[in-house]
């Protein structure tokens, strides 16, 4: 994916809703034009009716006022609705794009924590789309100024010119603060994002904190971050205050100048009293569209900062460039030949059809690297040697085929919100549950397989979670199944049952069990021992236990 800037992202969003945004802009322009005519009408009514005492005229002008308000309100109602629909739909679309990007099977190199990604997909997507609102506000405000200018020029040309020149100057003066506003706003948002990420991280680790009674020191660490964020927010607020104050003062001074000029003209009768009121009313009203410009500027600044973060995430490179080869594959099993990756140095490992291979790694990192390779998460440029799956070089396989062929159930079992049934993901999970010695978990609940499971399976015990995860992997029945320490949280007798259950169920398929459990190793057809990044021994568990002292030490209980 080509790199996307925040500006490009915003333009793309605008294009996707061009029709709606155009209609919104037109209607909001109409609304602003009507708003501008309100002070004009006040002037005319006072001039024509109030100061003359003519009853017909007051009724006429009140009728015109009613008509003006009707069009004003209808324009806004439908214009704003369309705008919000565009804004909401685009926010939703961006959020889904971010989620799809992060969940892309090819992986992502964003280097962001889940909490930060959440922030980008929620708050930043929302803030970025404030730009749509800002975009429609600008022409609407410009329309108000244009209408005001026409009315003023009709009344008195030099006065009209003064306003036409004065207003852009006002806007320019206010724009001077723009970049600083953006910088401060960005800093405040980033600090807030960091503090939020810290909060979610601490809350995720709350059980660890509680265990050692560290809630207070965690809260103190959050307080420090919160105070730093407060500092950044206050700096942004100060800049904003200067901006607001300047804005109020400048538009007020402008009003004074216009009132003085118009009053000067009214003294010698060049302007009627009604025209004076209209001019002054308009000059006072003009502060409003000018303020809209200011608001739009501020909104755009915030939106730009957020759009940049969304764009950054969307254009983060993928980790993998998968091949195109799909099944059926010529062979079965998986082979690693001379693979060097991280701590692995020239690893050779073959798992044939119908074979269950136990892997004992003396170094945790070797096992981690092996699992990473087998899960297909490592791009070929990051390792040396070859990996073949079903007789085909792994990089040539398309992603779905590769992952259908080789399934890795990670040690950290992640269950999802739903029921036991939805987590097992098959019609008939009974054989898999039996093999994973997990039938009792289903039996323990009156609602059986429909028993609800919380996100990450937090309502189950560690052992239950592990067995349901194992059952899920067995139920998926992949040609090659990779299990990483699948029985660390179950008792010895259950572990025995599981070992035999796996051996029975996976008799005709290929299975890799990375473990130090003698029960699991005893049922493997072959055991491979990895040390210093390569295979140092292989044989059955019995053979290795008898002759190899270091092996004994590693798997002995």
């Amino acid at each position, binding site marked *: 994916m080509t790199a996307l800037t925040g500006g490009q992202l915003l333009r793309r969003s605008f294009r996707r809703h061009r029709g709606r945004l155009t209609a919104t802009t037109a209607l909001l322009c109409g609304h602003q034009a009507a708003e501008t005519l309100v*002070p004009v009408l*006040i002037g005319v009514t*006072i001039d024509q*009716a109030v*100061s003359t005492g003519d009853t017909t005229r007051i009724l006429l002008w009140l009728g015109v006022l009613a008509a003006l308000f009707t069009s004003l309100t209808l324009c806004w109602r439908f214009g*704003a609705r369309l705008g919000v629909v565009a804004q*909401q739909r685009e926010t*939703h679309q961006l959020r889904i794009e971010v*989620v*799809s990007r992060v969940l892309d*099977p090819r992986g992502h190199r964003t280097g962001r*924590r889940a909490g930060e990604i*959440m*922030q980008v997909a929620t708050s930043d997507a929302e803030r970025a789309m404030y730009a749509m609102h800002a975009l429609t506000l600008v022409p609407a405000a410009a329309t108000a100024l244009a209408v005001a200018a026409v009315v003023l020029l009709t009344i008195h040309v030099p006065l009209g010119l003064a306003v036409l020149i004065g207003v852009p100057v006002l806007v320019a003066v206010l724009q001077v603060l723009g970049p600083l506003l953006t910088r401060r706003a960005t800093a405040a948002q980033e600090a807030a994002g960091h503090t*939020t990420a810290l909060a979610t991280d601490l*809350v*995720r680790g*709350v*059980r*660890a*904190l509680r265990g*050692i009674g*560290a*809630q207070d*020191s965690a*809260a*103190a660490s959050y307080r420090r971050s919160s*105070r730093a964020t*407060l500092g950044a927010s*206050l700096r942004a*607020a100060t800049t904003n*205050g*200067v901006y607001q104050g300047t804005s*109020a*003062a*400048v538009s*007020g001074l402008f009003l004074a100048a216009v*009132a003085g000029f118009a*009053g*000067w003209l009214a003294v010698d009768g060049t302007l009627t009293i009604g025209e004076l*009121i209209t001019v002054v009313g308009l000059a006072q009203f003009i502060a409003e569209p000018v303020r809209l410009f200011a608001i739009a500027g501020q909104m755009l600044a915030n939106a730009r900062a957020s759009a940049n973060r969304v764009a950054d995430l969307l254009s983060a490179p993928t980790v993998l460039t998968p091949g195109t080869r799909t099944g059926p594959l010529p062979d079965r099993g998986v082979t690693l030949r001379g693979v060097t990756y991280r701590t692995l140095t020239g690893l050779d490992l073959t798992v044939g059809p119908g074979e269950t291979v136990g892997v*004992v790694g003396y170094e*945790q990192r070797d096992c981690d690297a092996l699992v990473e390779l087998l899960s297909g998460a490592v791009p070929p440029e990051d390792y040396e040697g070859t990996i073949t799956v079903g007789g085909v070089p792994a990089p040539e396989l398309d992603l779905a085929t590769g992952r259908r062929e080789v399934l890795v159930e*990670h*040690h950290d079992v992640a269950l999802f919100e739903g029921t036991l049934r939805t987590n097992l993901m098959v019609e008939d999970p009974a054989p898999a549950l039996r093999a994973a010695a997990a039938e009792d978990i289903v039996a323990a609940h009156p609602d059986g397989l429909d028993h609800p499971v*919380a996100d990450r399976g937090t309502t189950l*015990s560690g*052992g239950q979670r592990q*067995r349901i995860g194992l059952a899920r992997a067995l139920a*998926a029945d992949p040609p090659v199944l990779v299990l990483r*320490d699948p029985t*660390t949280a179950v*008792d010895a007798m*259950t572990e*025995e049952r599981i*070992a035999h259950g796996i051996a029975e169920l996976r008799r005709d398929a290929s299975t890799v069990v990375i473990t130090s459990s003698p*029960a699991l*190793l*005893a049922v493997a057809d072959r055991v491979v021992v990895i040390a210093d990044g390569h295979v140092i021994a292989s044989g059955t568990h019995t053979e290795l236990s008898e002759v190899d002292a270091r092996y004994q030490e590693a798997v002995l*209980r």
Partner: protein
Amino acid sequence: MSELLPIASARRTAAALWTEVRALPVLGVLTAVAAVTASAAGLVAPWVLGLLVDDISAGADRGDVLTYAAVIGGAALLAGVLTGLSAVLISRLGETVLARLRERVLDRTLHLPAPTLDKVKSGDLLSRVGDDVSVVTTAISQTGPTLAAALLTVVLTGGGMFALDWRLGLAGLAAAPFYVLAVRWYLPRSGPFYAKERVAIGDRAQAMVSALQSAPTVRAYRLEAGHTAAINDRSRAAMDLSIGVFRLFTRLVARMNRAEFVGLGVILATGFLLVREDLVTVGAVTAAALYFHRLFNPVGALIMEFDEVQAAGASLARLVGVADLDRPTGPAEVREPADGTLALTGIAHRYEEPLVLDDVSTTVPAGTRLAVVGASGAGKTTLAGIAAGLLEQERGTVVLGGVPIGELDRARHVAMLSQEVHVFSGPLIEDLRLAKPDATEEEVWAALAVVGADGWARALESGVDTVVGESAHALTAAQAQQVALARLVLADPTVAILDEATAEAGSAGARDLERAALAATEGRTTVIVAHRLTQAVMADRILVLDHGKVVESGTHDELVAAGGRYAELWRSWHVADLGVQR
């Protein structure tokens, strides 16, 4: 598992905010003064313009016009300064209150009792400290200052109109019932809508957290599309609600416009009559009309912000709901245990129906190790939680050194490592200092050395200052366990409870971790939930649990000799150990 944390009532939310503001008296008063004078300075211009209109009609000269212009200009400068100042002060007040609130929310969340924590949706927990805080932050930093200024302008301008002429003031008030009706039409309809919207957003957060946290599993099972679709559905539902809320809002604005028209029309008509009867001047009617026109935006803003305020209010109520939770208070009088002897007597506990633990009694003499052995679901983890004082048992007592566990400083005396390991994002040293905030770097290194982690820690790019965690340097499962043990060493408790803490190590590291766990608990009264029987062998005494009852207890040799449940376990273990195939 699917419960929500409490949400405060509107009254309680307001009261909580008021309490916070009152805690900052000087800032509060300064803010109020600056905001009121800023709005008052804004009233000068229309008044002076009314005078100008009358004076010109009466034949004023140019000098008078210039004086009036100068007064308007001076007032504008003053208004500018005060507007800026009050915006800054209002933000300062709001942000400070928010910072205190979010800190308390996090504090309460971290102190949630264990049973509550297990029942609450993780998405709800995370959106309280995340999303809700963000919503309120936006409201305070962006809408707060505008809202306050608008409110003051409305009140002061209303006063200004009465000062011009009471009849004109009354005419302006004709709009009030229409505004009130508009808001009263709106509020009962929008409130429930916002509540639904918040729930939908919470559900959306839950779906996202679930997929993002478990990304490797999602990839392995090729569930990307399913999870994306689920998030899509929930996000769409939230979006539809948001659009619905806004449609309702546009109908409110139509009612507001009606009120504006009524007010302006009545002022002009009344002015017309009063001028005809020569009761007020044209200038006064002009000023009144201009005043009322000036109110359109502040009143609109008030309602507009009201909308945002309501949305923020929903989030705020969720924050206050958590902030108001009782912080578990320590004992009234902290007692010191005489020694490290841990005695559990007649412990019984249940979550729903059947008893998970039934009349469990045991004593762990100071400095000795007790291993708890049993099948999955035998009640080991529950017993560990109760022994650690994290779960409150239904019956029975837990006593440390002669003092019931509820009457001592639990955090100082008892530590527990649970099955869930978490590495905190940030520098490694900060993670470890969570256990002992004032630990020196030497102490941290010493703790790492005790658990055998100093080797790899030294090899890290920047040693203990290396940023670890999800997005930075990811630690292995065994390293994460060692970090957890090192935290225990730094916390230096009298009693250590290890719940399958070494189990997560996987193949190679388990043995090292067992050594590390032994070193970390040296000299402490220790309860180990063991499923690796080596942990049991190394213990001074073993307790065998079955379906919540103690079925055996004794030393390893005694139990093997007795030929009961433990001996059976040991045999199956040992057989596998010898690699005898069946």
